[in-house]
């Protein structure tokens, strides 16, 4: 029962593998994947209140991990639904694509439960390698040869940051003599006067900086976002980041009050991410690339909650990443709907979207305004609470810089809303009509964005309760 969601996911992966051996109709594969993922979502819901540990205490099942698993599964389900028949993926490997997608989700789910260094490593690699393979599976008709280049870049940067992480882990093991996070937490506390402890922790974080796309581990983002298929990018932009936050919370909570150096370092990374992401996004022409840079700046905001070293801060980061996933998926939903052949979209391609599909235009506008942090959407509420928490810890200058970043960011989000709403299509406008299921999902995402923005209390107490179980 403790392992139920993962087991279902594993069985689903195997069944998809078996289905892929034949030559199934695409529609059948799609229906199967959606059904399986819906089953996983259900399983995570059923096991939400489970509590226990597995595999020699290296695998914790508690509200924290189960809530994250639910989010991972739900976000993946959303991606599966709006990617329709996954037109951006080579048709001959589409069944295999789903096998890797499921494997990646499995790895990420295990990651949220891992409380031992080797378990963390194994789960991380399980998910990473699956995603590395998903990137170059894009059909070359929609991307030229770009997908190969970005696949290689993703792999190389990923392996490098794993190397950093392993190096850090070896230091930690050397310092503490244990690979269990609970042992490490008590043994590392008196060691924070040593540079070794600080270096070890920061290097260990590097692996997740990579997943979360935090400066200076962000280099893969623009190329991978542009080179990967739209549905793959949607997945990469939302799902691994959720899991990365889970592990980051576990790692950051190892830092004791004396680890001010680590906090300062995280501050620099956070502010650097915001400026780098926002300033680079200003000049982008490709929509996915722009969202990639915006993702870097949002990762900076997530870090703002973590570096407060308070359970309230962790809960807010948790809250923010849920909101971010919803906002980001909303934007990618529109991308997938407007690009039925799976091609890349320039910002110009949204010109006159309000005529081609008024509904999608509203969805896109709300998603972008929310990302920009305009109230009453979740982007504002999340940022506001993150800034309040950082302010309480005395990081006043960083709060001011973060606030300024909001002003920079509005320009590029607004320029997309502008072409979608304020200009008319140049040629004869082809209508865009999302399928019924996609429409339902987009309405659901909208409700999440607005509800989390207006009534954050309920969500915040849920994430606080979840964070409370691990501290």
């Amino acid at each position: 029962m403790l392992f139920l969601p993962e087991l279902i996911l594993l069985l689903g992966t195997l069944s998809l593998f078996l289905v892929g051996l034949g030559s199934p109709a695409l529609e059948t594969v799609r229906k199967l994947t959606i059904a399986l993922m819906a089953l996983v979502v259900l399983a995570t819901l059923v096991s939400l209140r489970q509590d226990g540990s597995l595999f020699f205490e290296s695998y914790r099942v508690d509200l924290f991990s189960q809530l994250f698993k639910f989010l991972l599964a739900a976000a993946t389900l959303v991606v599966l639904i709006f990617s329709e028949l996954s037109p951006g993926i080579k048709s001959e490997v589409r069944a295999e694509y789903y096998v890797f997608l499921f494997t990646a989700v499995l790895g990420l789910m295990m990651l949220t439960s891992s409380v031992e260094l080797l378990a963390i490593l194994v789960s991380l690699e399980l998910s990473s390698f699956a995603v590395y393979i998903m990137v170059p599976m894009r059909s070359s008709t929609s991307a030229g040869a770009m997908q190969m280049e970005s696949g290689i870049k993703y792999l190389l940067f990923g392996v490098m940051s794993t190397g950093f992480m392993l190096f850090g882990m070896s230091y930690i093991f050397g310092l503490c003599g244990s690979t269990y996070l609970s042992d490490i937490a008590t043994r590392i506390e008196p060691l924070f006067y040593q540079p070794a402890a600080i270096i070890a922790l920061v290097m260990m974080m590097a692996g997740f900086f990579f997943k979360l796309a935090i400066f200076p581990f962000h280099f893969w983002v623009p190329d991978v976002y542009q080179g990967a298929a739209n549905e793959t990018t949607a997945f990469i932009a939302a799902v691994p980041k959720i899991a990365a936050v889970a592990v980051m919370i576990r790692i950051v909570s190892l830092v004791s009050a004396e680890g001010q150096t680590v906090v300062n370092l995280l501050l620099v990374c956070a502010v650097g991410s915001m400026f780098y992401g926002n300033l680079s996004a200003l000049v982008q022409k490709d929509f996915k690339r722009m969202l990639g840079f915006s993702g870097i700046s949002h990762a900076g905001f997530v870090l703002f909650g973590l570096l407060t070293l308070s359970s309230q801060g962790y809960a807010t980061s948790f809250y923010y990443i849920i909101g971010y996933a919803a906002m980001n998926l909303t934007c990618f939903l529109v991308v997938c709907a407007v690009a039925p052949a799976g091609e890349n979209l320039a910002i110009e391609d949204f010109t006159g979207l309000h005529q081609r599909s008024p509904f999608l235009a509203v969805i896109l506008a709300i998603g972008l305004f929310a990302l920009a942090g305009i109230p009453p959407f979740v982007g504002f509420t999340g940022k506001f609470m993150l800034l309040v928490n950082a302010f309480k810890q005395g990081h006043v200058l960083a709060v001011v810089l973060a606030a300024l970043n909001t002003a920079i960011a509005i320009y590029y989000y607004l320029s997309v809303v502008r072409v979608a709403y304020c200009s008319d299509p140049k040629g004869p406008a082809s209508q865009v009509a999302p399928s019924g299921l996609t429409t339902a999902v987009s309405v659901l995402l909208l409700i999440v964005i607005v509800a989390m923005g207006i009534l954050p209390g309920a969500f915040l107490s849920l994430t606080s309760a979840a964070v409370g179980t691990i501290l």
Partner: protein
Amino acid sequence: MDQLLINQGFPLLSTLIFLPLAGAFVLLPMRGDEACRYASLAFTSIVALLSLVLVAGFDTSTAAFQFAETHVWVAPLNINYTIGIDGISILLVVMTALIMPFCVLASWSYIKVRVKPFMICLLVMETAMIGVFVALDFVLFYILWEAMLIPMYLIIGIWGGPRKIYASIKFFLYTLAGSILLLVAIIWLYWKNSYSFFIPEMMWQPYGLLPQVLVFIAFFIAFAVKVPMFPFHTWLPAAHVEAPTAGSVILASILLKMGTYGFVRFALPIVPDATLLLLPYVLWLSIAGIIYGGLTALAQQDMKKLIAYSSVGHMGFVTLGIFVLNKQGIEGAILQMINHGVTTGALFLCVGMIYERTHSRELSDATGVGKYMPIFVTFLAFFSLSSFGFPGTNSFVGEFLVLAGTFEFDVTLGLAAIPGAVIAAAYMLRMLQKVIWGGVDNPDQSWITDLNSREIITLAPFLLFVLWIGLSPGPFMEMMDMSVTELLSQFNAYKAQSVAAAEILVGR
């Protein structure tokens, strides 16, 4: 929370805030442009009528916040849904509620495409605007303050003129960038007031001088952009010129008032020391705005631009009145906010009516219509006279009070403001002369038709208020009197206290 008189009966203020929003949701599934127009007219009219109930129940003998409601909203952060109304905000709320039906009427034939989204934007705007004036929780205030940018951006960006994209983005960026530091100031105040966002309890607290100055600067940038004060005004002509008539009216009549309302409600009571320290700069910027706005208006060929620049000048009078910190000044400033809302709103409506006929805002294309549009020019004449403060009209009372307060504060400052009043007469009369009579080279205007009954109904109430406030300002002054008196007595008490504290320090 003794500053609040909690409303026991029907939640009138919440109804005022949320009824337009409910209207927007009612409009969503509607089909047919005509139905949407009537529905939004109905909703805005009900809100306008309800606002009159508010006036009837308003107690002018107290300075506390009336009709107050408070509910827990986000418990972990101690954010509450707290609203209330006092003498400073009631006139603004009522003005907002009364103007909105006329914005709908003014868009009746002006907006031809995408009528439903336009009306939804108007209704959402109304919710946010009324909310801003009654919010007593800083987070609630900030959320509504920022949220209104979205519908306003869309109103300018979709239904605007040829340079709408430039204008709408400039409007959005300016106002958003301006209010970013306000957010940091709010968080600081929250932290300083033992984690509470309740605005009345932030007032008259002994903060240090340096933080006060920083908070004042944050307030100042946010509010000065909105007012707009010279030199933060450059978004205004662009936005006004490109916005559709209803958008211009909302901008001029209501949105600009939020800046000055912010100064009275927040800057003065929350950071009084910094206000005293920095007030000379603000006052002289106001003078600069008055003179600059007037001179620029004198040179305009585009009627909307002319009125937009005249707004810069008029709002300069308002900020001048606020920061001279005496009773005439502040009461004059608040009255002048209402006057400017009535008069300038009406002038924009007039220009919109010409534009609907000639499809041009150029002064040279509208010369000599007096012969063919007698009713129209009668209205225009009254509003123009009111705009430069002709005795007997509303602006005379407001400007007179502001100038009286200014002279009481400092004679040099008063003398510096006088030319502004003269220039106002010059540019308004110039426009009036050209529109009514023009010259020998008038274009052929004989095909033009005079106002229809819908347009007369739209303009008549504005004229009523121009003359009512002009001839009998007493009832209006009475509404705000207690709150302004209270504000000033608190301010003077605070000043005396901090002077005493400084003397003790020096004495040591």
